[in-house]
């Protein structure tokens, strides 16, 4: 299991690197889709069918929006020459990333090894959840009963985002 997920994550990393360096924006968007759809397979392997369903819908919608934006405008990236400033930025970024990776490695040391999760918090949700919520799907039980206000906040964020998109696209800009 760990090996299969590692292979898929390496595939995702390669897709992300290609998406960042592609000279055509449309192929960058499609390569970004590799990452999202591989995530669906990872969720299925990690026994999270609800997440896989939601992720495949969300990724498709995101891809459609991005392709629509790219097709409506210029597709080639105006790279120009790879000048000194670009080299300095890339070198600084690599140094920052190396330091960050060290910190993340240190921070992940006290975590339980992969596959040996102890469920400290979820026991209260799992035991007797069917009697309390009437839902056999524990994720739905947590989402809509134990943490219902969280879902209400999520709906609020969605409505705010829709209102924001409509406002941004409808106003006439200063010429």
């Amino acid at each position, binding site marked *: 299991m760990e090996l299969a997920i590692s292979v898929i994550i390496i595939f995702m990393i390669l897709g992300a690197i290609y998406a960042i360096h592609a000279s055509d924006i449309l192929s960058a968007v499609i390569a970004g889709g590799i990452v999202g759809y591989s995530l669906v397979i990872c969720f299925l392997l990690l*026994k999270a069918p609800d997440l896989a369903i939601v992720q495949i819908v969300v990724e498709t919608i995101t891809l459609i929006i991005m392709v629509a934006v790219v097709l409506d405008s210029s597709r080639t990236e105006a790279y120009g020459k790879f000048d000194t400033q670009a080299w300095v930025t890339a070198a600084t970024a690599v140094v920052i*990333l190396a330091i960050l990776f060290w910190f993340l490695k240190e921070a992940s040391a006290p975590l339980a090894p992969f596959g040996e999760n102890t469920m400290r918090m979820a026991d209260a949700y799992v035991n007797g959840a069917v009697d309390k919520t009437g839902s056999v799907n524990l994720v739905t039980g947590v989402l809509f009963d134990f943490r219902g206000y969280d879902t209400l906040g999520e709906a609020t*964020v969605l409505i705010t985002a829709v209102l924001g998109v409509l406002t941004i*696209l409808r106003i006439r800009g200063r010429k």
Partner: protein
Amino acid sequence: MTVYWLCFILFLVGLYGVITRRNLIKIAISLSVMEFSCFLFLALIGYTEGGVAPIVDTADPVKTYVDPLPQAMVLTAIVIGLATTAMLMAVIIRIYRKYGTFDIREINNLRG
């Protein structure tokens, strides 16, 4: 632990894209790569070896389930991620209509 480290590398690849790229669409793609790596990390933490999907079978209730709590949190985060991406693309469309380019250096030069 290898999967956790690969997950960090995926996050850092996204961060590298955000820092070094000058194209707005590529910055948006890199941001969603960072998002996906966070979702993957939370789902990895909740996995239990030999567990089944957290759907209770009432005929045979004694089973090991994977942790449903991170899954519920990630479900919320995925939908909010879609909302923020849509908002970001709307802003990018406005910028393109005003300046005619995705390149952030050009946009910087045209200010005024």
